Protein backbone atom coordinates (compact mmCIF):
# COMPACT_ATOMS: atom_id res chain seq x y z
CA UNK A 1 0.00 0.00 0.00
CA UNK A 2 0.96 3.61 -0.59
CA UNK A 3 3.05 4.81 2.36
CA UNK A 4 1.08 8.05 2.72
CA UNK A 5 -2.28 6.25 2.90
CA UNK A 6 -0.96 3.78 5.38
CA UNK A 7 0.39 6.50 7.64
CA UNK A 8 -2.93 8.30 7.80
CA UNK A 9 -4.76 5.06 8.53
CA UNK A 10 -2.47 4.15 11.36
CA UNK A 11 -1.65 7.43 13.01
CA UNK A 12 -3.02 10.64 14.42
CA UNK A 13 -1.17 13.85 15.26
CA UNK A 14 1.20 13.33 12.39
CA UNK A 15 4.40 15.33 12.49
CA UNK A 16 5.63 16.23 9.03
CA UNK A 17 8.88 18.13 8.62
CA UNK A 18 9.97 20.22 5.65
CA UNK A 19 13.59 20.92 4.91
CA UNK A 20 15.52 22.26 1.95
CA UNK A 21 17.63 19.72 0.08
CA UNK A 22 21.33 20.51 0.12
CA UNK A 23 21.11 22.71 3.19
CA UNK A 24 23.06 23.56 5.27
CA UNK A 25 25.53 21.46 3.25
CA UNK A 26 25.04 19.83 -0.13
CA UNK A 27 25.65 16.34 1.23
CA UNK A 28 23.22 16.62 4.16
CA UNK A 29 19.99 15.67 2.38
CA UNK A 30 19.78 11.97 3.16
CA UNK A 31 21.42 12.27 6.54
CA UNK A 32 18.72 14.70 7.69
CA UNK A 33 16.00 12.35 6.45
CA UNK A 34 17.44 9.48 8.48
CA UNK A 35 17.87 11.60 11.58
CA UNK A 36 14.31 12.89 11.31
CA UNK A 37 12.85 9.42 11.11
CA UNK A 38 14.95 8.21 14.02
CA UNK A 39 13.87 11.08 16.23
CA UNK A 40 10.17 10.58 15.54
CA UNK A 41 9.07 12.49 12.45
CA UNK A 42 6.18 10.75 10.68
CA UNK A 43 6.56 12.21 7.21
CA UNK A 44 9.11 14.28 5.27
CA UNK A 45 8.87 17.02 2.71
CA UNK A 46 12.15 17.59 0.97
CA UNK A 47 12.28 20.93 -0.78
CA UNK A 48 14.13 21.15 -4.09
CA UNK A 49 15.37 24.72 -4.19
CA UNK A 50 14.31 27.37 -6.70
CA UNK A 51 15.78 30.79 -7.38
CA UNK A 52 12.46 32.63 -7.12
CA UNK A 53 10.32 30.99 -4.42
CA UNK A 54 7.42 33.46 -4.21
CA UNK A 55 5.35 31.46 -1.72
CA UNK A 56 8.17 31.34 0.77
CA UNK A 57 9.34 33.75 3.42
CA UNK A 58 12.91 34.89 4.06
CA UNK A 59 14.14 31.80 5.97
CA UNK A 60 13.29 29.15 3.38
CA UNK A 61 14.28 31.52 0.60
CA UNK A 62 17.72 32.02 2.15
CA UNK A 63 18.16 28.26 2.63
CA UNK A 64 17.22 27.73 -1.04
CA UNK A 65 19.70 30.31 -2.19
CA UNK A 66 22.50 28.85 -0.10
CA UNK A 67 21.71 25.37 -1.37
CA UNK A 68 21.71 26.53 -5.01
CA UNK A 69 24.90 28.54 -4.54
CA UNK A 70 26.52 25.35 -3.23
CA UNK A 71 25.57 23.54 -6.43
CA UNK A 72 22.28 21.81 -5.69
CA UNK A 73 20.18 20.67 -8.67
CA UNK A 74 17.20 18.39 -9.09
CA UNK A 75 19.42 15.88 -10.86
CA UNK A 76 21.83 15.84 -7.92
CA UNK A 77 18.92 15.46 -5.50
CA UNK A 78 17.75 12.27 -7.19
CA UNK A 79 21.32 10.92 -7.02
CA UNK A 80 21.42 11.73 -3.30
CA UNK A 81 18.13 9.92 -2.79
CA UNK A 82 19.23 6.75 -4.59
CA UNK A 83 19.46 4.83 -1.30
CA UNK A 84 16.50 6.58 0.32
CA UNK A 85 14.48 3.42 0.80
CA UNK A 86 17.39 1.51 2.31
CA UNK A 87 17.54 4.07 5.08
CA UNK A 88 14.12 5.68 5.47
CA UNK A 89 10.72 4.00 5.71
CA UNK A 90 8.35 6.93 6.41
CA UNK A 91 6.55 8.72 3.54
CA UNK A 92 8.62 11.24 1.63
CA UNK A 93 7.32 14.04 -0.57
CA UNK A 94 9.25 16.42 -2.77
CA UNK A 95 8.24 20.05 -2.61
CA UNK A 96 9.27 22.76 -5.02
CA UNK A 97 8.29 25.08 -7.85
CA UNK A 98 7.18 24.03 -11.29
CA UNK A 99 9.95 25.43 -13.49
CA UNK A 100 12.74 23.07 -12.36
CA UNK A 101 10.29 20.18 -12.92
CA UNK A 102 9.51 21.41 -16.44
CA UNK A 103 13.18 21.68 -17.31
CA UNK A 104 13.91 18.25 -15.85
CA UNK A 105 10.96 16.88 -17.83
CA UNK A 106 7.66 15.96 -16.20
CA UNK A 107 7.73 12.31 -17.27
CA UNK A 108 11.35 11.92 -16.27
CA UNK A 109 10.65 13.64 -12.94
CA UNK A 110 7.82 11.24 -12.11
CA UNK A 111 9.94 8.26 -13.11
CA UNK A 112 12.83 9.43 -10.95
CA UNK A 113 10.49 9.97 -7.98
CA UNK A 114 9.12 6.46 -8.32
CA UNK A 115 12.57 4.99 -8.75
CA UNK A 116 13.99 6.41 -5.52
CA UNK A 117 10.78 5.78 -3.59
CA UNK A 118 9.31 9.26 -3.28
CA UNK A 119 5.59 9.03 -2.48
CA UNK A 120 4.25 12.38 -3.55
CA UNK A 121 4.84 15.98 -4.54
CA UNK A 122 3.80 19.45 -3.54
CA UNK A 123 4.23 22.00 -6.32
CA UNK A 124 2.58 25.21 -5.08
CA UNK A 125 2.67 27.08 -8.39
CA UNK A 126 1.32 24.22 -10.50
CA UNK A 127 -2.33 25.17 -11.07
CA UNK A 128 -5.09 22.64 -10.68
CA UNK A 129 -6.24 22.94 -14.31
CA UNK A 130 -2.76 22.34 -15.65
CA UNK A 131 -2.29 19.38 -13.34
CA UNK A 132 -5.53 17.83 -14.43
CA UNK A 133 -4.82 18.30 -18.11
CA UNK A 134 -1.12 17.61 -18.42
CA UNK A 135 0.33 16.00 -15.29
CA UNK A 136 -2.27 13.83 -13.59
CA UNK A 137 -1.91 10.75 -15.77
CA UNK A 138 1.83 10.76 -15.40
CA UNK A 139 1.67 11.21 -11.62
CA UNK A 140 -0.86 8.42 -11.27
CA UNK A 141 1.07 6.07 -13.53
CA UNK A 142 3.98 6.36 -11.12
CA UNK A 143 1.78 6.19 -8.01
CA UNK A 144 2.67 9.70 -6.91
CA UNK A 145 0.29 11.70 -4.77
CA UNK A 146 -0.01 15.33 -5.74
CA UNK A 147 -0.85 17.50 -2.76
CA UNK A 148 -2.76 20.77 -3.19
CA UNK A 149 -2.89 23.73 -0.88
CA UNK A 150 -6.00 25.47 0.38
CA UNK A 151 -6.22 28.78 2.23
CA UNK A 152 -8.92 30.54 4.28
CA UNK A 153 -9.93 32.24 1.00
CA UNK A 154 -10.37 29.04 -1.01
CA UNK A 155 -14.03 28.65 -1.98
CA UNK A 156 -15.87 25.52 -0.89
CA UNK A 157 -16.58 24.36 -4.42
CA UNK A 158 -12.88 24.55 -5.20
CA UNK A 159 -11.98 22.64 -2.04
CA UNK A 160 -14.24 19.79 -3.17
CA UNK A 161 -12.63 19.84 -6.59
CA UNK A 162 -9.17 19.63 -5.01
CA UNK A 163 -10.39 16.82 -2.78
CA UNK A 164 -11.47 14.91 -5.85
CA UNK A 165 -8.20 15.48 -7.67
CA UNK A 166 -5.74 14.48 -4.96
CA UNK A 167 -5.14 11.20 -3.24
CA UNK A 168 -2.64 11.87 -0.47
CA UNK A 169 -3.69 14.64 1.84
CA UNK A 170 -4.73 18.27 1.61
CA UNK A 171 -2.34 20.92 2.79
CA UNK A 172 -4.33 23.39 4.85
CA UNK A 173 -2.64 26.76 5.07
CA UNK A 174 -3.32 28.32 8.45
CA UNK A 175 -3.58 31.74 6.86
CA UNK A 176 -2.99 33.33 3.50
CA UNK A 177 0.68 34.04 4.00
CA UNK A 178 4.16 33.20 2.87
CA UNK A 179 6.01 30.60 4.95
CA UNK A 180 7.52 31.55 8.27
CA UNK A 181 4.76 33.69 9.73
CA UNK A 182 3.69 32.73 13.26
CA UNK A 183 0.38 30.98 13.64
CA UNK A 184 -2.04 33.00 15.69
CA UNK A 185 -5.05 30.87 16.26
CA UNK A 186 -7.81 33.37 16.81
CA UNK A 187 -11.53 33.01 16.32
CA UNK A 188 -11.40 33.35 12.54
CA UNK A 189 -8.69 30.71 12.14
CA UNK A 190 -10.58 28.32 14.42
CA UNK A 191 -13.76 28.93 12.49
CA UNK A 192 -11.92 28.19 9.25
CA UNK A 193 -10.34 24.98 10.61
CA UNK A 194 -13.73 23.84 11.92
CA UNK A 195 -15.38 24.67 8.62
CA UNK A 196 -12.89 22.46 6.76
CA UNK A 197 -13.22 19.69 9.33
CA UNK A 198 -16.98 19.70 8.85
CA UNK A 199 -16.72 19.35 5.07
CA UNK A 200 -15.91 15.66 5.63
CA UNK A 201 -13.37 15.54 2.84
CA UNK A 202 -12.25 12.16 1.55
CA UNK A 203 -8.61 13.13 1.99
CA UNK A 204 -6.93 13.69 5.33
CA UNK A 205 -5.69 17.20 6.09
CA UNK A 206 -2.42 18.56 7.38
CA UNK A 207 -2.11 22.09 8.70
CA UNK A 208 0.95 24.05 7.72
CA UNK A 209 2.46 27.55 7.78
CA UNK A 210 3.21 29.06 11.16
CA UNK A 211 3.61 25.91 13.26
CA UNK A 212 6.73 26.37 15.34
CA UNK A 213 6.25 24.86 18.82
CA UNK A 214 4.41 22.19 20.75
CA UNK A 215 1.52 24.47 21.55
CA UNK A 216 0.76 25.45 17.94
CA UNK A 217 1.36 21.86 16.85
CA UNK A 218 -1.19 20.49 19.32
CA UNK A 219 -3.67 23.15 18.36
CA UNK A 220 -3.31 22.24 14.68
CA UNK A 221 -3.67 18.53 15.48
CA UNK A 222 -6.99 19.14 17.16
CA UNK A 223 -8.40 20.22 13.78
CA UNK A 224 -6.48 18.06 11.35
CA UNK A 225 -4.62 14.78 11.02
CA UNK A 226 -1.38 16.50 11.80
CA UNK A 227 0.80 19.47 11.06
CA UNK A 228 3.73 20.48 8.89
CA UNK A 229 6.74 22.34 10.22
CA UNK A 230 9.16 24.02 7.85
CA UNK A 231 10.67 27.36 8.69
CA UNK A 232 11.24 26.58 12.38
CA UNK A 233 13.13 23.40 11.46
CA UNK A 234 15.22 25.07 8.76
CA UNK A 235 16.22 27.68 11.33
CA UNK A 236 17.06 25.02 13.89
CA UNK A 237 19.55 23.18 11.68
CA UNK A 238 21.26 26.28 10.30
CA UNK A 239 24.39 25.79 12.41
CA UNK A 240 25.10 22.42 10.79
CA UNK A 241 25.36 20.38 14.00
CA UNK A 242 22.78 17.95 12.63
CA UNK A 243 23.08 15.04 15.05
CA UNK A 244 22.03 17.14 17.95
CA UNK A 245 19.80 19.78 16.39
CA UNK A 246 17.51 17.37 14.50
CA UNK A 247 16.64 15.17 17.45
CA UNK A 248 16.35 18.05 19.91
CA UNK A 249 13.94 19.72 17.52
CA UNK A 250 11.75 16.73 16.80
CA UNK A 251 11.52 15.58 20.38
CA UNK A 252 9.92 18.87 21.41
CA UNK A 253 6.85 17.85 19.45
CA UNK A 254 6.73 14.24 20.49
CA UNK A 255 6.86 14.87 24.23
Amino acid sequence: MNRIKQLFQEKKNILSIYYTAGYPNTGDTLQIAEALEKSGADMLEIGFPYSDPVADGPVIQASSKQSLDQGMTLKLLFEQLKDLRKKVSIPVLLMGYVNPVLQFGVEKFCEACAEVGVDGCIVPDLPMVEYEEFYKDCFEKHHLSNVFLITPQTAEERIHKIDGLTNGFIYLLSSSATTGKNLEVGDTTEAYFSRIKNLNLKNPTMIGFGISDKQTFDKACSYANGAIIGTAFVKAIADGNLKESVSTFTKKFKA
Partner: protein
Amino acid sequence: MKYKVNEKGYYGDFGGAYIPEMLYPNVEELRQNYLKIIDDADFQKEFHQLLKDYVGRPSPLYLAKRYSERYGANIFLKREDLNHTGAHKINNTIGQILLAEKLGKKRIIAETGAGQHGVATATVCALRNLECVIYMGEVDIERQAPNVARMKMLGAKVVPASSGSKTLKDATNEAMRDWINNPVDTHYIIGSVVGPHPYPDMVAIFQSIISEETKKQLSEQTGSDQPDYVLACVGGGSNAMGMFYHFMDNENVKLIAVEAAGKGVSSGFSAATTYLGKEGVLHGSRSILMQTPDGQVVEPHSVSAGLDYPGIGPQHAHLFKTGRGQYVSITDEESLDAGLLCTQLEGIIPAIESAHALAYLEKMEFKGGENVVVCLSGRGDKDLDTYIKYFNL
Protein backbone atom coordinates in the same frame (compact mmCIF):
# COMPACT_ATOMS: atom_id res chain seq x y z
CA MET B 1 -7.61 37.81 -33.32
CA LYS B 2 -5.11 35.05 -33.99
CA TYR B 3 -2.56 36.41 -31.58
CA LYS B 4 -4.85 37.39 -28.73
CA VAL B 5 -5.44 35.47 -25.55
CA ASN B 6 -7.82 32.48 -25.59
CA GLU B 7 -10.49 31.71 -23.01
CA LYS B 8 -8.04 29.63 -20.99
CA GLY B 9 -5.61 32.50 -20.65
CA TYR B 10 -3.13 31.21 -23.23
CA TYR B 11 -1.38 32.59 -26.30
CA GLY B 12 -0.53 29.40 -28.15
CA ASP B 13 1.80 27.51 -25.81
CA PHE B 14 2.32 30.48 -23.51
CA GLY B 15 0.50 32.21 -20.68
CA GLY B 16 -1.72 30.62 -18.07
CA ALA B 17 -1.71 31.38 -14.37
CA TYR B 18 1.03 29.47 -12.54
CA ILE B 19 0.37 30.83 -9.09
CA PRO B 20 0.27 29.38 -5.60
CA GLU B 21 -3.20 28.83 -4.15
CA MET B 22 -2.70 31.85 -1.89
CA LEU B 23 -2.91 34.10 -4.96
CA TYR B 24 -5.75 32.27 -6.65
CA PRO B 25 -8.67 34.29 -5.17
CA ASN B 26 -7.01 37.61 -6.08
CA VAL B 27 -6.16 36.61 -9.61
CA GLU B 28 -9.50 34.89 -10.14
CA GLU B 29 -11.35 37.99 -8.98
CA LEU B 30 -9.44 39.98 -11.59
CA ARG B 31 -9.97 37.40 -14.29
CA GLN B 32 -13.71 37.34 -13.78
CA ASN B 33 -14.05 41.12 -13.72
CA TYR B 34 -11.40 42.82 -15.81
CA LEU B 35 -13.13 42.72 -19.19
CA LYS B 36 -16.51 43.61 -17.72
CA ILE B 37 -15.02 46.63 -15.96
CA ILE B 38 -12.86 47.77 -18.87
CA ASP B 39 -15.71 47.48 -21.38
CA ASP B 40 -18.06 49.52 -19.23
CA ALA B 41 -18.90 52.86 -20.84
CA ASP B 42 -18.34 54.90 -17.67
CA PHE B 43 -14.94 53.29 -17.16
CA GLN B 44 -13.96 54.05 -20.76
CA LYS B 45 -15.09 57.63 -20.40
CA GLU B 46 -13.12 58.23 -17.22
CA PHE B 47 -10.05 56.39 -18.56
CA HIS B 48 -9.95 58.43 -21.76
CA GLN B 49 -10.67 61.67 -19.96
CA LEU B 50 -7.68 61.12 -17.67
CA LEU B 51 -5.47 60.06 -20.57
CA LYS B 52 -6.36 63.30 -22.30
CA ASP B 53 -6.35 65.84 -19.47
CA TYR B 54 -3.87 64.31 -17.07
CA VAL B 55 -1.46 62.28 -19.19
CA GLY B 56 -1.57 64.62 -22.18
CA ARG B 57 -2.73 62.17 -24.84
CA PRO B 58 -2.84 61.68 -27.72
CA SER B 59 0.93 61.63 -27.82
CA PRO B 60 2.21 63.03 -31.13
CA LEU B 61 3.23 60.85 -34.04
CA TYR B 62 6.20 62.84 -35.28
CA LEU B 63 7.72 62.48 -38.74
CA ALA B 64 11.42 62.72 -37.93
CA LYS B 65 12.85 64.51 -40.99
CA ARG B 66 16.55 64.09 -40.39
CA TYR B 67 16.16 60.45 -39.41
CA SER B 68 14.10 59.94 -42.56
CA GLU B 69 16.85 61.47 -44.70
CA ARG B 70 19.48 59.33 -43.04
CA TYR B 71 17.65 56.05 -43.60
CA GLY B 72 15.77 56.78 -46.81
CA ALA B 73 12.42 55.89 -45.30
CA ASN B 74 9.72 57.82 -43.50
CA ILE B 75 10.64 57.44 -39.85
CA PHE B 76 7.85 58.31 -37.45
CA LEU B 77 8.40 58.55 -33.71
CA LYS B 78 5.48 57.76 -31.43
CA ARG B 79 6.20 60.20 -28.64
CA GLU B 80 5.33 58.31 -25.45
CA ASP B 81 8.20 60.25 -23.87
CA LEU B 82 5.92 63.29 -23.79
CA ASN B 83 3.42 61.63 -21.44
CA HIS B 84 3.13 62.85 -17.88
CA THR B 85 5.85 61.10 -15.81
CA GLY B 86 7.93 60.62 -18.94
CA ALA B 87 7.05 57.22 -20.36
CA HIS B 88 4.32 54.89 -21.58
CA LYS B 89 4.02 53.30 -18.14
CA ILE B 90 1.31 55.72 -17.03
CA ASN B 91 -1.20 54.43 -19.62
CA ASN B 92 -1.33 51.18 -17.68
CA THR B 93 -1.31 52.61 -14.17
CA ILE B 94 -4.22 54.94 -14.96
CA GLY B 95 -6.19 51.97 -16.24
CA GLN B 96 -5.34 49.72 -13.33
CA ILE B 97 -5.99 52.29 -10.61
CA LEU B 98 -9.50 52.87 -11.96
CA LEU B 99 -10.00 49.12 -12.10
CA ALA B 100 -8.72 48.71 -8.53
CA GLU B 101 -11.24 51.31 -7.37
CA LYS B 102 -14.06 49.42 -9.07
CA LEU B 103 -12.93 46.27 -7.25
CA GLY B 104 -13.08 48.18 -3.96
CA LYS B 105 -9.36 47.93 -3.22
CA LYS B 106 -7.83 50.28 -0.66
CA ARG B 107 -4.16 49.57 -1.04
CA ILE B 108 -1.90 49.45 -4.10
CA ILE B 109 1.39 47.61 -4.48
CA ALA B 110 3.79 47.53 -7.41
CA GLU B 111 7.28 46.43 -8.37
CA THR B 112 9.72 48.66 -10.16
CA GLY B 113 13.13 48.35 -11.79
CA ALA B 114 14.38 51.71 -12.97
CA GLY B 115 11.58 53.37 -11.07
CA GLN B 116 9.47 54.51 -14.04
CA HIS B 117 6.61 52.14 -13.25
CA GLY B 118 7.01 52.93 -9.55
CA VAL B 119 6.70 56.64 -10.25
CA ALA B 120 3.72 56.08 -12.58
CA THR B 121 2.03 54.00 -9.87
CA ALA B 122 2.81 56.43 -7.05
CA THR B 123 1.47 59.21 -9.26
CA VAL B 124 -1.93 57.64 -9.83
CA CYS B 125 -2.15 56.67 -6.15
CA ALA B 126 -1.63 60.31 -5.19
CA LEU B 127 -4.21 61.28 -7.80
CA ARG B 128 -6.81 58.87 -6.42
CA ASN B 129 -5.75 59.06 -2.75
CA LEU B 130 -4.88 55.39 -2.30
CA GLU B 131 -2.17 53.88 -0.09
CA CYS B 132 0.86 52.93 -2.18
CA VAL B 133 3.73 50.53 -1.50
CA ILE B 134 6.48 50.11 -4.10
CA TYR B 135 8.95 47.23 -4.07
CA MET B 136 12.32 48.03 -5.56
CA GLY B 137 15.59 46.11 -5.54
CA GLU B 138 18.24 47.44 -3.18
CA VAL B 139 20.67 47.76 -6.06
CA ASP B 140 18.15 49.74 -8.13
CA ILE B 141 17.34 52.01 -5.18
CA GLU B 142 20.98 53.01 -5.11
CA ARG B 143 21.35 53.60 -8.85
CA GLN B 144 17.98 55.35 -9.36
CA ALA B 145 17.96 57.81 -6.47
CA PRO B 146 15.95 60.58 -8.24
CA ASN B 147 13.05 58.21 -8.97
CA VAL B 148 13.09 56.98 -5.36
CA ALA B 149 12.81 60.60 -4.24
CA ARG B 150 9.94 61.20 -6.68
CA MET B 151 8.02 58.21 -5.34
CA LYS B 152 8.52 59.38 -1.78
CA MET B 153 7.36 62.90 -2.65
CA LEU B 154 4.27 61.33 -4.15
CA GLY B 155 3.53 59.67 -0.83
CA ALA B 156 4.54 56.11 -1.65
CA LYS B 157 6.40 53.84 0.71
CA VAL B 158 9.44 52.40 -1.08
CA VAL B 159 10.39 48.97 0.29
CA PRO B 160 13.83 47.62 -0.63
CA ALA B 161 13.91 44.07 -2.01
CA SER B 162 17.00 42.62 -0.42
CA SER B 163 16.67 39.03 -1.59
CA GLY B 164 18.36 37.36 -4.57
CA SER B 165 20.04 39.76 -6.94
CA LYS B 166 18.22 42.76 -5.41
CA THR B 167 16.88 43.98 -8.78
CA LEU B 168 13.58 43.93 -10.73
CA LYS B 169 13.01 40.18 -10.61
CA ASP B 170 13.36 40.20 -6.83
CA ALA B 171 11.18 43.28 -6.46
CA THR B 172 8.51 41.33 -8.38
CA ASN B 173 8.90 38.37 -6.02
CA GLU B 174 8.52 40.66 -3.00
CA ALA B 175 5.41 42.31 -4.45
CA MET B 176 3.89 38.86 -5.03
CA ARG B 177 4.69 37.94 -1.42
CA ASP B 178 3.02 41.13 -0.22
CA TRP B 179 -0.07 40.21 -2.23
CA ILE B 180 -0.12 36.72 -0.72
CA ASN B 181 -0.02 38.24 2.75
CA ASN B 182 -2.69 40.87 1.97
CA PRO B 183 -5.24 38.95 -0.07
CA VAL B 184 -8.36 41.04 0.42
CA ASP B 185 -7.81 44.79 0.29
CA THR B 186 -4.79 45.06 -2.02
CA HIS B 187 -4.42 45.37 -5.78
CA TYR B 188 -1.09 44.60 -7.40
CA ILE B 189 -0.37 46.86 -10.38
CA ILE B 190 2.03 44.83 -12.50
CA GLY B 191 3.96 47.16 -14.78
CA SER B 192 4.47 44.99 -17.84
CA VAL B 193 2.72 42.39 -19.98
CA VAL B 194 3.98 39.65 -17.66
CA GLY B 195 2.51 37.77 -14.71
CA PRO B 196 -0.41 35.36 -14.47
CA HIS B 197 -3.41 35.69 -16.78
CA PRO B 198 -5.21 38.14 -16.99
CA TYR B 199 -2.31 40.57 -16.40
CA PRO B 200 -0.61 40.25 -19.79
CA ASP B 201 -3.91 40.83 -21.55
CA MET B 202 -5.06 43.60 -19.24
CA VAL B 203 -1.80 45.56 -19.48
CA ALA B 204 -1.76 45.06 -23.27
CA ILE B 205 -5.29 46.45 -23.51
CA PHE B 206 -4.35 49.56 -21.52
CA GLN B 207 -1.19 50.07 -23.57
CA SER B 208 -2.97 49.44 -26.87
CA ILE B 209 -3.88 53.14 -26.92
CA ILE B 210 -0.39 53.57 -28.45
CA SER B 211 -1.20 51.68 -31.65
CA GLU B 212 -4.81 52.86 -31.67
CA GLU B 213 -3.60 56.47 -31.90
CA THR B 214 -0.77 55.57 -34.27
CA LYS B 215 -3.18 54.13 -36.82
CA LYS B 216 -5.33 57.21 -36.77
CA GLN B 217 -2.40 59.64 -36.86
CA LEU B 218 -0.63 57.77 -39.61
CA SER B 219 -3.78 57.75 -41.67
CA GLU B 220 -4.13 61.52 -41.24
CA GLN B 221 -0.51 62.13 -42.15
CA THR B 222 0.01 59.63 -44.97
CA GLY B 223 -3.43 58.58 -46.08
CA SER B 224 -2.82 54.99 -44.98
CA ASP B 225 -3.16 53.55 -41.51
CA GLN B 226 -0.81 50.69 -42.34
CA PRO B 227 2.91 51.21 -41.68
CA ASP B 228 5.46 48.87 -43.23
CA TYR B 229 7.34 48.41 -39.96
CA VAL B 230 6.73 49.10 -36.30
CA LEU B 231 9.63 48.88 -33.86
CA ALA B 232 9.75 48.86 -30.08
CA CYS B 233 12.11 47.76 -27.33
CA VAL B 234 11.26 44.75 -25.17
CA GLY B 235 12.07 44.11 -21.55
CA GLY B 236 8.89 42.51 -20.26
CA GLY B 237 7.37 44.07 -23.36
CA SER B 238 4.59 46.49 -22.45
CA ASN B 239 5.40 49.37 -24.78
CA ALA B 240 6.03 46.91 -27.60
CA MET B 241 2.73 45.17 -27.00
CA GLY B 242 0.97 48.55 -26.99
CA MET B 243 2.72 49.44 -30.23
CA PHE B 244 1.97 46.06 -31.89
CA TYR B 245 -1.54 45.54 -30.59
CA HIS B 246 -3.68 46.93 -33.40
CA PHE B 247 -1.24 45.80 -36.08
CA MET B 248 -0.85 42.18 -34.98
CA ASP B 249 -3.59 40.79 -37.16
CA ASN B 250 -2.43 42.67 -40.25
CA GLU B 251 0.41 40.51 -41.55
CA ASN B 252 1.52 43.27 -43.94
CA VAL B 253 2.87 45.20 -40.98
CA LYS B 254 6.23 43.87 -39.86
CA LEU B 255 6.66 43.83 -36.09
CA ILE B 256 10.20 44.27 -34.81
CA ALA B 257 10.93 43.80 -31.12
CA VAL B 258 14.33 44.91 -29.90
CA GLU B 259 15.82 43.17 -26.88
CA ALA B 260 18.81 44.25 -24.86
CA ALA B 261 21.96 42.33 -25.80
CA GLY B 262 23.81 43.98 -22.90
CA LYS B 263 27.53 43.52 -23.40
CA GLY B 264 26.79 41.06 -26.23
CA VAL B 265 24.52 38.03 -26.45
CA SER B 266 27.35 35.61 -25.70
CA SER B 267 29.09 37.73 -23.07
CA GLY B 268 27.27 36.36 -20.05
CA PHE B 269 25.96 39.89 -19.46
CA SER B 270 22.85 40.08 -21.58
CA ALA B 271 19.08 40.34 -21.44
CA ALA B 272 18.37 38.98 -24.94
CA THR B 273 15.68 36.60 -23.75
CA THR B 274 14.53 35.06 -27.02
CA TYR B 275 18.13 34.37 -28.00
CA LEU B 276 19.33 33.02 -24.66
CA GLY B 277 16.14 31.78 -23.07
CA LYS B 278 14.11 28.61 -23.08
CA GLU B 279 10.46 27.90 -22.44
CA GLY B 280 9.51 27.77 -18.80
CA VAL B 281 7.52 29.43 -16.04
CA LEU B 282 8.40 32.76 -14.45
CA HIS B 283 6.29 35.09 -12.32
CA GLY B 284 3.07 33.21 -12.95
CA SER B 285 3.09 32.53 -16.66
CA ARG B 286 4.56 30.12 -19.13
CA SER B 287 6.85 32.02 -21.46
CA ILE B 288 10.47 32.21 -22.54
CA LEU B 289 13.02 32.99 -19.87
CA MET B 290 16.74 32.95 -19.26
CA GLN B 291 17.53 30.00 -17.03
CA THR B 292 20.07 27.35 -16.15
CA PRO B 293 19.60 23.76 -17.41
CA ASP B 294 18.24 23.06 -13.89
CA GLY B 295 15.50 25.68 -14.32
CA GLN B 296 16.94 28.37 -12.07
CA VAL B 297 16.36 31.90 -13.31
CA VAL B 298 19.48 33.61 -14.62
CA GLU B 299 20.33 37.22 -13.80
CA PRO B 300 20.10 39.40 -16.89
CA HIS B 301 22.20 42.43 -17.69
CA SER B 302 21.45 45.60 -19.59
CA VAL B 303 22.67 49.18 -19.27
CA SER B 304 18.99 50.05 -19.32
CA ALA B 305 17.26 49.10 -16.07
CA GLY B 306 13.90 48.86 -17.85
CA LEU B 307 15.12 46.04 -20.11
CA ASP B 308 16.99 44.24 -17.35
CA TYR B 309 14.48 41.38 -16.99
CA PRO B 310 15.09 37.64 -17.55
CA GLY B 311 11.81 36.95 -19.33
CA ILE B 312 9.33 38.36 -21.83
CA GLY B 313 5.56 38.45 -21.69
CA PRO B 314 3.75 35.32 -22.91
CA GLN B 315 2.20 37.11 -25.88
CA HIS B 316 5.67 38.10 -27.04
CA ALA B 317 6.80 34.50 -26.66
CA HIS B 318 3.90 33.56 -28.91
CA LEU B 319 4.70 36.23 -31.53
CA PHE B 320 8.31 35.05 -31.45
CA LYS B 321 7.55 31.34 -31.73
CA THR B 322 5.03 31.77 -34.53
CA GLY B 323 7.42 34.06 -36.39
CA ARG B 324 4.85 36.86 -36.46
CA GLY B 325 7.31 39.16 -34.73
CA GLN B 326 10.98 39.53 -35.48
CA TYR B 327 13.02 39.58 -32.25
CA VAL B 328 16.44 41.17 -32.50
CA SER B 329 18.92 42.60 -30.03
CA ILE B 330 21.06 45.68 -29.56
CA THR B 331 24.09 46.06 -27.27
CA ASP B 332 24.58 48.60 -24.50
CA GLU B 333 27.02 50.58 -26.65
CA GLU B 334 24.85 50.57 -29.76
CA SER B 335 21.91 51.86 -27.71
CA LEU B 336 23.89 54.66 -26.09
CA ASP B 337 25.26 55.74 -29.48
CA ALA B 338 21.73 55.71 -30.87
CA GLY B 339 20.56 57.82 -27.92
CA LEU B 340 23.15 60.45 -28.76
CA LEU B 341 22.31 60.28 -32.47
CA CYS B 342 18.62 60.85 -31.75
CA THR B 343 19.49 63.80 -29.53
CA GLN B 344 21.67 65.39 -32.20
CA LEU B 345 19.45 64.65 -35.20
CA GLU B 346 16.05 65.33 -33.70
CA GLY B 347 16.65 67.23 -30.46
CA ILE B 348 15.11 64.47 -28.40
CA ILE B 349 16.99 62.74 -25.56
CA PRO B 350 15.45 59.26 -25.46
CA ALA B 351 15.39 56.81 -22.58
CA ILE B 352 18.11 54.19 -23.08
CA GLU B 353 15.31 51.60 -23.34
CA SER B 354 13.81 53.42 -26.33
CA ALA B 355 17.26 54.02 -27.78
CA HIS B 356 17.52 50.24 -28.29
CA ALA B 357 14.62 50.41 -30.74
CA LEU B 358 16.15 53.44 -32.51
CA ALA B 359 19.51 51.68 -32.75
CA TYR B 360 18.01 48.92 -34.85
CA LEU B 361 17.22 51.41 -37.62
CA GLU B 362 20.96 51.46 -38.34
CA LYS B 363 20.80 47.75 -39.18
CA MET B 364 17.75 47.80 -41.42
CA GLU B 365 17.75 48.12 -45.16
CA PHE B 366 15.04 50.17 -46.81
CA LYS B 367 14.03 50.28 -50.45
CA GLY B 368 12.95 53.86 -49.97
CA GLY B 369 9.71 55.45 -48.94
CA GLU B 370 8.58 52.84 -46.41
CA ASN B 371 6.62 54.07 -43.44
CA VAL B 372 8.34 53.08 -40.21
CA VAL B 373 7.02 53.78 -36.72
CA VAL B 374 9.36 53.59 -33.73
CA CYS B 375 7.88 53.70 -30.26
CA LEU B 376 9.83 56.29 -28.33
CA SER B 377 8.67 54.80 -25.05
CA GLY B 378 10.31 57.22 -22.63
CA ARG B 379 12.45 60.28 -22.17
CA GLY B 380 16.10 60.15 -21.20
CA ASP B 381 16.20 62.51 -18.22
CA LYS B 382 16.53 59.56 -15.86
CA ASP B 383 19.49 58.26 -17.87
CA LEU B 384 21.62 61.39 -17.91
CA ASP B 385 24.16 59.94 -15.47
CA THR B 386 24.70 56.96 -17.75
CA TYR B 387 24.99 59.14 -20.87
CA ILE B 388 27.37 61.53 -19.08
CA LYS B 389 29.65 58.70 -17.99
CA TYR B 390 29.65 56.98 -21.39
CA PHE B 391 30.29 60.07 -23.49
CA ASN B 392 32.44 61.92 -20.92
CA LEU B 393 30.11 64.89 -21.23
